[in-house]
């Protein structure tokens, strides 16, 4: 318990340090309302995808297909939005079409989740291989159905999801916070959540405790797929378009954000709160450096360095190196 709290403490400290550094380099403008708002428009996409990655990692699995899932459901949504809008005659905002599209998109995510769940829970392929296979296949399907083209031009209601704000808080942020809240409740307050952590710590012990491992894994990957689709809703709305290869660089970033947030790669440990802190840290670094005009690639390199540093500190902590000194 103490150990977990101390890691949360490190993250909090890291966040403050990063914030101070960014303010020192950019001036107080960094904390201006405008910049905070632009950051909270950018964070949710990666945030939702990281939640999708997190839940798979908690069961000691991984879901490499999240980006491919997200793009495929984005494309399905885009087809519905662009294909049905002119015929429906609704000159208004197209709320119903948008609702239909979003539901279809979420269904795509759930179906992909079921396929992953089947391969992992029933056929017993290791998660990394199963999702590697589905990743390649899904991105292939996306290319085939779009023939590699961009699909764009959505109704107002769809665009509002990603680009408007409600009471000053950007819509994507609201969606992300609700989804993160739901995820936290599922993990901490439901039997499913407890079982997800149990499978991650010791699947055999979990099985002999009378848990239906298959069912838990199935639901885990379905949830992971649905969260990828929610990310797709925000992504296509912000880009006003969908394409087979959007956001490919997000894949490794989600693993990075999850691990930085204290999600154990071996499974069984990690909380939504840590994840949110790590997302904020990463977003502050990328926005801060962006304001300074630093290349995106340097930001990527910095994320890598931070990830290794955090893992090293964590290792030293777990081996009592720092604790013994403090005592």
């Amino acid at each position, binding site marked *: 318990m103490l150990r977990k709290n101390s890691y949360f403490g490190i993250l909090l400290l890291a966040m403050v340090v990063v914030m101070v550094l960014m303010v020192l380099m950019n001036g107080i403008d960094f904390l201006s309302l405008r910049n905070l708002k632009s950051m909270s428009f950018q964070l949710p996409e990666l945030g939702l995808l990281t939640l999708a990655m997190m839940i798979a990692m908690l069961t000691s699995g991984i879901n490499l297909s999240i980006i491919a899932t997200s793009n495929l459901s984005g494309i399905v949504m885009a087809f519905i939005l662009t294909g049905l809008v002119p015929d429906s005659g609704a000159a208004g905002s197209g709320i119903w079409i948008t609702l239909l599209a979003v539901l279809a998109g979420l269904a795509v995510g759930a179906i992909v989740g079921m396929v992953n769940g089947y391969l992992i829970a029933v056929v017993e392929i290791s998660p990394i291989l*199963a999702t590697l296979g589905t990743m*390649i296949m899904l991105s*292939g399907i996306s290319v*085939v159905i779009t023939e590699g083209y961009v699909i764009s031009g959505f109704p107002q209601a769809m665009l509002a999801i990603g680009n408007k704000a409600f009471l000053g808080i950007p819509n994507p942020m609201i969606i992300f916070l609700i989804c993160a809240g739901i995820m936290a409740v599922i993990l901490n307050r439901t039997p499913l959540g407890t079982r997800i952590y149990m499978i991650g710590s010791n699947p055999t012990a979990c099985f002999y405790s009378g848990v239906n491992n298959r069912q838990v894994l199935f639901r885990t990957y379905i949830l992971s797929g649905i969260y990828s689709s929610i990310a797709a809703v925000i992504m296509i709305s912000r880009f006003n378009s969908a394409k087979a290869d959007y956001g490919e660089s997000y894949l490794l970033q989600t693993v*990075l954000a999850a691990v930085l947030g204290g999600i154990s790669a071996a499974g069984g440990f990690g909380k939504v709160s840590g994840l949110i802190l790590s997302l904020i840290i990463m977003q502050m670094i990328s926005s801060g450096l962006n304001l300074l005009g630093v290349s995106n*690639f340097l930001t990527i*390199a910095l994320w890598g*360095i931070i*990830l290794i540093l955090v893992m090293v500190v964590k290792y030293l902590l777990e081996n009592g190196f720092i604790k013994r000194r403090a005592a």
Partner: protein
Amino acid sequence: MKNLLYRHETYVFLAIIIFVTVVSIINPAFFTLENFFDLLKSASLMGTFAIGMLFVLISGGIDISFTAIATVSGYTIAVLLLRIGDSLNIILVFLIAALIGIALGMINALIIHNFKIPSIITTIATQNIFYGILTVITTGTWLYGFPKWFGDFATIRVFTFYTSEGVPYGLSIVTVIWIALILISWFILKYTVLGRGIYAMGGNTLSAQRTGFNLFGLTLFVYSWMGLMAGIGSVIQALLVQTVAPNSLVGKEMDVIAAVVLGGASMAGGSGSVLGMILGVTMISILGNGMTIMRVPAIWYNVVIGLVIIVSVGASAYRRKIFTRRKVITETTSAGGQRAA
């Protein structure tokens, strides 16, 4: 003979034969010596990376950063070739690329071993670091226009045939390099203490340590070997396309992992063979080539590759599942029998 049925390689081999037969019937141009040498040449790049990946997977790890390592070493030799190309030769080029690869691989090994950070996380981080810093320094410029000798070396053929139209073809020097690397790897894995140590470490780390294997040495070797293959691969890439672009390799790491896994290496470590790796690379290569020859649109490529991977790893996972279940049943019944006696 019965053992063959339990080997993953057998099934991959059968699948390859079936596919080759089908493609050859549809278009006889596929089953020609010319196309065969072409295939070998284009498979050499992925094949070289796959050798390194095979070692890492057998040792129970994974390396995502090798494409970034290859990019760094490829870019370095490209800059050297453009600046002082006339005073270099092909051996020096390979040597420089190899040293850079080994050095970067060692960084991975040191982080993984000393801080017990899972290899997937370490190499995701180092991929970002290597690639990020390289792109910042180079600003993503493409490099081409290498010295004439560098271009000439790439066209060397060990033996040459001519088509009926008089176009020469034959076994490329690039393929020879790949084959040499395969033979060395096969020897290391099969006949040296080092190779058996890599299998032991991947099978059960604790037992390997207690048996007296030097885990640090093994880790260092495995990731340096991956780095070495990345370095050599980067030269092969430069030879094949005569251009070095910072973004041409990063992002392709999953293809290589897929090829090696298709050949039966497991993500859990401790299993995998050079033969399987060759079959996996062959499978992926002839799928691409065969689809082109059958005039299947290129956009279908990923769908087919993805399906093949799922079916292949699914079949082998399913067989393993049935096999272990049968083993558990026979073991418990025989144990029961002994107790009764």
